[in-house]
């Protein structure tokens, strides 16, 4: 029996939002109570972001009303939302690269000193240091944000929202970039905020979090509310069923590789100028090999050293038995494909078409004479679109209009066209919803089925456990251990990664 929880802090009634051709929100009602964590679930495009934008005054709703402590209000701008005590932790970082941590946390709310316009830097740094301490972050608050890694930037973003002492705190996938350890800390902070009476709206793609943190769950699908439930009265399967409208196995399963092929990648005592050393890794064709570890353990750095993007200072990298040196261009020619974590910045050209992206890395091979042949370009790209089942109305569609999962496929298609044989995926499912995740794994499975070799970096332990044939676990820039299929468990990885032998 749900208790009487009093008047909600914020109540959205019958909110609709239309875009040309799309009904982003359709009569959605949503209540937010003090001291509750309200989980908001839904696939990408289900309307979660639109709902938050309405809540934050970035979108004006076409229909419906918002009540604040039972009184009708209009939220027409972020400033309005802020006045009502609504703070949002954005998934796309809203940080200024060349301002320091403290300046970013208090952007728009700088501490005034007695001189008009003058900022009280000392006060800001003191306050910021307290917030970082709360989140277990040890950085100097004078560090410029562009020097921080993704996880640390996410923590700054969280500190920024916390600093607003909001009564409603909206978190859009706050743990997407965090390691397990950082996630634990964040959860502690959330529980404390809850006790202090803060209302929290929490968007997540991780079902485990929903049950660990949530007091109430709302599921959106295609802009409509399809479920409002209590965690004690539902199951992960039911939630997934509601989200996608059909039953999907959340734990992706594949046939593991019994007989690996030839040695595709071998690193011998590899060290780079980015803090890794003594790394020995082997990947054979037909295998998916995981590279696990906490954020900052050096996984991405291993990938970059193999690819030739960072300078190798020690040891060597062999691709199909041949030592390689030189830069990414050499690696690419030998069939190494790196699919980076930061897809939007490094993997695809968002403002170019699907076709342009698919052909980008293979122009020299496809058009040896130097000029572009539209017929060939079209044929090759259409073939890849069919093969990888990229959901796009046309090869000429701009990539930025595709979903995250389909953008990922475009990146893979690009490297397949370029003759990739060793694929290195860095966090391939970051920011991708449940349904598309299985598709990404199918894609990776298909790659190894065709005789490619895959090295996959992931922070999600379950992904490594379910998808990989075996895995290396990194800690502090070195390989802490190797787990065969039979020993590959979440606990086993964590023990190695965190040194709890």
């Amino acid at each position: 029996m749900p208790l009487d929880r009093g008047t909600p802090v914020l109540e959205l009634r019958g909110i609709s939002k239309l875009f040309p051709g799309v009904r982003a929100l359709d009569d959605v009602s949503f209540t937010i109570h003090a001291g509750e964590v309200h989980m908001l679930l839904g696939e990408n495009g289900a309307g979660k972001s639109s709902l938050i934008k309405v809540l934050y005054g970035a979108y004006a709703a076409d229909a419906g009303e918002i009540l604040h402590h039972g009184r009708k209000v209009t939220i027409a701008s972020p400033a309005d939302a802020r006045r009502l005590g609504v703070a949002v932790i954005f998934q796309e970082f809203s940080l200024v690269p060349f301002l320091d941590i403290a300046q970013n946390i208090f952007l728009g709310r700088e501490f005034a000193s007695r001189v008009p316009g003058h900022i009280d830097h000392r006060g800001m740094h003191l306050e910021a240091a307290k917030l970082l301490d709360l989140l277990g972050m040890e950085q100097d608050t004078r560090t410029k944000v562009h020097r921080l890694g993704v996880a640390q930037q996410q923590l700054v973003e969280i500190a920024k929202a916390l600093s607003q002492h909001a009564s409603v705190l909206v978190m859009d996938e706050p743990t997407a970039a965090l390691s397990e350890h950082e996630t634990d800390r964040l959860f502690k902070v959330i529980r404390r905020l809850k006790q202090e009476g803060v209302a929290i709206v929490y968007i997540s793609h991780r079902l485990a979090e929903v049950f660990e943190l949530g007091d109430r769950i709302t599921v959106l699908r295609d802009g409509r509310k399809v479920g409002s439930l209590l965690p004690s009265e539902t199951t992960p399967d039911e939630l997934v069923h509601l989200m996608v409208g059909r039953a999907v196995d959340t734990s992706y399963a594949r046939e593991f590789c019994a007989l690996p092929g030839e040695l595709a990648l071998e690193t011998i005592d590899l060290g780079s100028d980015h803090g890794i050393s003594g790394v020995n890794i082997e990947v054979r064709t037909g295998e998916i090999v995981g590279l696990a570890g906490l954020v900052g353990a050096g996984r991405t750095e291993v990938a970059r050293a193999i690819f030739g993007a960072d300078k190798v200072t020690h040891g060597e990298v062999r691709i199909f038995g041949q030592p390689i040196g030189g830069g990414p261009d050499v690696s690419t020619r030998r069939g190494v494909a790196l699919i980076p974590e930061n897809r939007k910045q490094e993997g695809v050209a968002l403002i170019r078409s699907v076709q342009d992206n698919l052909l980008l890395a293979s122009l020299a091979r496809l058009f040896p004479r130097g000029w572009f042949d539209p017929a060939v370009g079209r044929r090759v790209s259409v073939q890849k679109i069919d093969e990888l089942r990229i959901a796009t109305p046309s090869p000429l569609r701009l990539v930025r209009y595709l979903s995250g999962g389909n953008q990922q496929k475009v990146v893979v298609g690009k490297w397949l066209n370029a003759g990739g044989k060793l694929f290195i995926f860095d966090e391939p499912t970051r920011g991708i919803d449940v349904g598309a995740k299985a598709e990404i794994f199918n894609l990776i499975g298909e790659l190894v089925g065709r005789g490619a070799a895959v090295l996959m970096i992931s922070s999600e332990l379950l992904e490594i456990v379910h998808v990989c044939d075996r895995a290396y676990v990194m800690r502090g820039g070195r390989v802490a251990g190797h787990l065969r299929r039979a020993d590959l468990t979440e606990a086993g990885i964590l023990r190695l990664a965190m040194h709890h032998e």
Partner: protein
Amino acid sequence: MSETSALALRPGRLRAALAATPGVAYILLLMVVVFGATSKYFLSGANLLNVGMQSAILLMIALPMTLIIMSEGLDISLGAVLTLCSVVLALMLVRGSGLPVALAAAVAVGLAFGLANGLLVSVVNMPPFVATLGTFGMAQGLALAVTDGQSVVGIGETVQTIYAGGVFGVPIPIAFALGSYAFSHWLLYHTRFGSYVFAIGGNREALVLAGVRANLYHIGIYVFGGCMAGLAALLLTARMNSGHPTAAIGIEFDAIVAVAIGGTSFERGDGWLFGTVLGTFAVGVMRNGLNLLGVPSSLQVVSIGLLVIIALFVDGLKQRT
């Protein structure tokens, strides 16, 4: 062994310190050495003071230009606006206005152009190059129109004495430059406005989401440029002892050069104000040294272009190591 000598002797530290020193500092040093060796007069106190005096006006344009470029903008109208302000100042003085009124008029003209630039860039959302190309033409045309293309002479003794005079032994142009730098430094590093300059260039969306009226501050950046041009007009007019309708055309080019070699980024919202000071000196020293060596002014422009390329090349080299 004392701690200081330990620091000095450790090669790693030295290398780190060398790498942290921006390219413009090396270039400045190199130029001083070369010009000092080739011209006896170059290193004399009188000449160095001269360089400082000549650089003062440029610095007053280069400082706001730094903020404008940091906001991913550009203002190519500043030279023409400075010229127009100078002409207005001279005309007012000739017609008998007092210096405060004439200066206020000059600053008001600068402010108006800054406001126009800011509105076009932030509200109308025009590319800064195009917007300021338009106002450049307008300012230049107006300067020619109000003067009939002639110099405005007879501005009186007061203004002349300003250029030659000093406060507490510091020549007034130098005092202006120092004051402008101090103010700009305070503005960029110690005020909200300054933080928002970084934000507009680095992530404008973040600023809007923080509930800040970004347009207002964006306009403010260009207004700052216009006002500085108005103030600098006083020095320009005093130095020329007249208002000339083409007096400062092209100074915006030197200012952009000073900002660029001073290490300010054109696309990331990163800037370094003191680097602009060094960059301004580099341009000033280059022009002065080449003058002393008798290099014609057309070739000076070539060498300033070369200066940009070398400075950015040195910075690029350092980033790679």
